[in-house]
């Protein structure tokens, strides 16, 4: 059963506008969340993370919001740029969820239209 879900397989946004990528999780033991970005033919690269003690973390154009009561997190990219076009994976981990494993969502393909 998928413990981390990204229900939107794809998203298209105009350059300069905001991109919002969503992620839901089911396991209340998760206490650390990450976003990865993947270009074709490359491995995923770490983008931004958030601990469950926070509800927001910002790094330049990227902001991650965490709503623990809703078991939901989102990644905001403002302003979106064509180079942001990639597949974005959210991931979660938590003490007791199994061998320090990171649980990944299925990914959302973001296309930023120039």
């Amino acid at each position, binding site marked *: 059963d998928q413990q981390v879900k990204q229900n939107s397989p794809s998203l298209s946004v105009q350059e300069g506008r905001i991109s919002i990528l969503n992620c839901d999780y089911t396991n209340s033991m998760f206490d650390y969340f990450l976003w990865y970005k993947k270009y074709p033919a*490359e*491995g995923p690269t770490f983008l931004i993370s958030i601990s469950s003690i926070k509800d927001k973390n910002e790094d330049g154009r990227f902001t991650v919001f965490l709503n623990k009561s809703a078991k939901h997190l989102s990644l905001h990219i403002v302003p979106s740029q064509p180079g942001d076009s990639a597949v974005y994976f959210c991931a979660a981990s938590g*003490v007791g969820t199994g061998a320090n*494993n*990171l649980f990944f969502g299925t*990914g959302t393909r973001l296309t930023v239209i120039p």
Partner: protein
Amino acid sequence: DVKVTQSSRYLVKRTGEKVFLECVQDMDHENMFWYRQDPGLGLRLIYFSYDVKMKEKGDIPEGYSVSREKKERFSLILESASTNQTSMYLCASSTRQQALFGPGTRLTVL
């Protein structure tokens, strides 16, 4: 510069061949993972290892085996490759709060 390396970026094999995918990390991480990525299915965990000579099945271990004889090296083995194992294979090593991925191996089984 810390990194995870994979032995091949692209590989073409025939059905029934034995295939070895090698992964090496230089961060002294205890945890290493093998994933495959397929369109619409995201990253699916095949096997992971949390120590030398230790291995655990992930979500889709069928048709695969692994070997971890040294801490820095984690190998994925396809005993008899099949066409449904055509995929992008990604190795990662991690702490609980960070996973570093290799560049991936695009395997095509004909």
